[in-house]
């Protein structure tokens, strides 16, 4: 069952959170319930793939506060918001900040479970993406400083000649570095390299005004 993922329920109403956790379990998820955002943050288990079912209105940190807090600390998790009454501005803001869904209490099980399923899927994707990014990062860090530099210039779309000119090195040397980068990064093409590095958050080199000249290849 744990294969389906974990649902973290945060609601100040003990009865509500118990029932929501039960429903998640009945649908085959692992479920953990927390009485407040603070309690959740203190005991958050990031190793498990999962999603949050979060009450908007809570004493202390509200649901929205928790979302913000997690985003800030880079521990984002797919969130299904629950609210007593459909409050449009709040829901729009929550969705903008990446909430999976914004549901009104009392919530029908199918609706809630569909949202949870989507959130868990997203969590899995996020997890996969995170794992890939970590791998790319690891590969990136295995590059020598010069190779990293060349990579970031490659990402800008510059030709070898241009890179050589920018780095004040020989075009041949650039070619060697480039080959090694492609090998170490296990990229089949520049396009794949770009996609890969984007996910890992590796920025292209800053090239001033010349960035305007985009060259297609």
């Amino acid at each position: 069952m744990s294969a389906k993922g974990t649902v973290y329920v945060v609601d100040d109403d003990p009865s509500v959170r118990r029932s929501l956790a039960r429903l998640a379990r009945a649908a085959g998820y692992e479920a953990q319930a927390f009485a407040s955002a603070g309690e959740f943050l203190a005991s958050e288990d990031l190793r498990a793939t999962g999603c949050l079912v979060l009450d908007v209105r809570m004493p202390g940190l509200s649901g929205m506060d928790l979302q913000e807090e997690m985003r800030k600390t880079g521990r984002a998790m797919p969130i299904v918001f629950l609210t007593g009454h459909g409050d449009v501005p709040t829901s729009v803001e929550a969705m903008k900040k990446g909430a999976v869904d914004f549901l009104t209490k009392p919530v029908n099980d199918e609706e809630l479970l569909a949202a949870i399923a989507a959130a868990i899927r997203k969590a899995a994707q996020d997890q996969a993406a995170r794992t890939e990014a970590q791998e790319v990062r690891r590969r990136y860090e295995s590059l020598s400083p010069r190779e990293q530099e060349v990579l970031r210039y490659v990402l800008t779309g510059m030709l070898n000649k241009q890179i050589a000119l920018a780095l004040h090195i020989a075009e041949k040397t650039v070619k060697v570095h480039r080959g090694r980068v492609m090998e170490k990064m296990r990229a089949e093409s520049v396009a794949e390299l770009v996609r890969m590095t984007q996910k890992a958050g590796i920025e292209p080199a800053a090239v001033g005004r010349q960035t305007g000249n985009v060259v297609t290849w």
Partner: protein
Amino acid sequence: MLRKPAAMRENQQQELGAPRPAGPWAGLAVIVCVMAGLAFMASVNFLLFHALIEVFSVIVAGCIFVVAWNGRRFLDNSFLPSVGIAYLFVGLLDLLHTLAYKGMGVFSNVGSNLATQLWTAARYLEAAALLVGALLLKQKVRAELFWLLYAALALGLTLTIFAWPVYPACYLEDQGLTVFKKVSEYVICALFLAALAVLWRGRERFEPGVWRLLAGFFVLRIASELAFTLYVDVYGFFNIVGHLLKLAGFMVLYRAMVETGLARPYALLFRDLKRNEEQLEQRVAERTREVTEALAFERLVAELSARLNAPAEGLSEAIGDALRRLVEFFQADRGMLLEANADLTEARVLYCHAPSAAPPAPEVFQRAMVPWLLESARQRRTVCLDSLDDLPREAATDREALARLGTTSGLLLPVFVGQRLRYGLALDCLGSRRTWPQALRERLRLAGEVFGNALTRERGEQEAGRLRREFIRMDRMTRMGELTAAIAHELNQPLTAILSNAQAALRFMDHADPDPDQLREILKDIVEDDRRAGNVIRSLRSLVKRGTAREEPVDLNGVIQEVLALVHSDAVARKVDLRSRLAEDLPRLLGDKALLQQVLLNLLMNAVEAVTEQAAGARAVTVGTERGAAGTLRLYVRDTGPGLPPDKMERVFEPFFTTRQGGLGMGLAITASIVARHRGRIWAENNPAGGATFFVELPAAGPAGGQA
């Protein structure tokens, strides 16, 4: 009341009469002896006999004159003056008759005719005077007229006998009594009879004893005159009998007039006076009774007015009691206070004081039932019915309605407020007729006004009370409106839990091996949440209920918990830390639960408003209970808001006082009015560490209330 003094007077009369010769028989025996003696004397010396009798009658005549003349001022009729003055002249004629009697030798050369002429003249005068007196029994004529009349008559008669002998002869020596004389006697008898008949018709003006004597006198006199028609000789037997009867007559007359007049003047002379006095006394007694009743009534009205102006109990009780007192005062059986509607189509019974046996009065009298009575009231007429027969023909419908009510005698007083007929006061008797004293009827208007004022005031109080209750309810509804979202949330939570629990259970059931323990737990939770939702609804219902305040034992902590459940999510939404510190084992208090909830709701929402001005982490409201001094409960709501301006501590409970923008300023004023209704006290203090605390102190219910 009048009977007794009259009887006493009767006794006094008998006592005054007591010194007379013992018993009537002794007196009669003396009279008979005297008569026998005189009869014997007549056979020996007729002249002496005659002279004695005549002189006696002359003296009696004189005495009558004296009594009548001197008593004339006390009499309101002319019987006695007429008779008295006449008797003076009758006496003079009788004296002349005596002196002229044959054999007396006073007048020379006279036979029996002169004396007989004088006799008849005296009798004419006497009989005429008695008739005139009898005719004047009921009126008063100036005594001088009698002097003139009788002096003229006596003088005329005397002159016709002596100076101009035109007076017919009465006795001729060769024939005896003339026809004139005999006819005269019959005429005189007829005059006596006529006088007797006239007097008989007015006999009630005489005291019974006097009347009997007077009647006896007439009978004896008539008998005497008849005897005088029969004699042939002036010394003869019938002459003696006639004179003896005349003597007896004058003795009786003496008893009737002179003796009574002197010994018991009030029986004769002052009888009218006495009767006047009695009438006066009766009038005085009546008047005294009237005045006493009027005074008693005025005192009653003053007392009722004072009580109704400042009733010790409720005004309604005071009005009911006043009506009862009025009914009792008038010795009526039933009293009603009615209120006419604006278009006078009906009159509603506001108050009714009636014996349980009375037919039930309707709550409303429609115009169709009592059209005449309503119309009379509209025309400001007080209707007084000694019996239902006093109703006019056109009031047949009213009569029927009253008969159905069992009314046999009644009174309806319209009470106007301004120019409009507003109320009516009805008193009636069931099963008996009675007269409503005129004097009191008029004074009743005063009572009507007193009731009118009281009823108008009662109406005002009722209206004010209704408005106040409506105002309090509106405040509550406003609060509820403000709380709608929070209340919806409070209901939504258990509903959410129930739905999710139930759907989870359904899914567990679909599993291959459902765990019964888990299902049981889910069902338990569902039951619990359903209860929770039910409690919210119950709190709501008690808050929105309409209706009059009820006093019942209330658990203050329970009230607080219910209100906290309603306010909880609102506090959460506003990031207010809401806590309660409730003392355990608090006694109950007597009050209206909904109103007490309102007090707490207002204080709590005020506090929540106050702390919202603070930073998110510093918003705390604490509601608590504790035992106050001397059998009181204390409730407090403490906040960490900005506190109250020290100079406005008292003013916060005034209507329309507000420190916030957009606030109506009624919340605390209404709260204070509710607390006052529960005989409690409310005040505010600033906390040393900032913020304000509102205190409410309420009297705890007695031990009995606590048990209930």
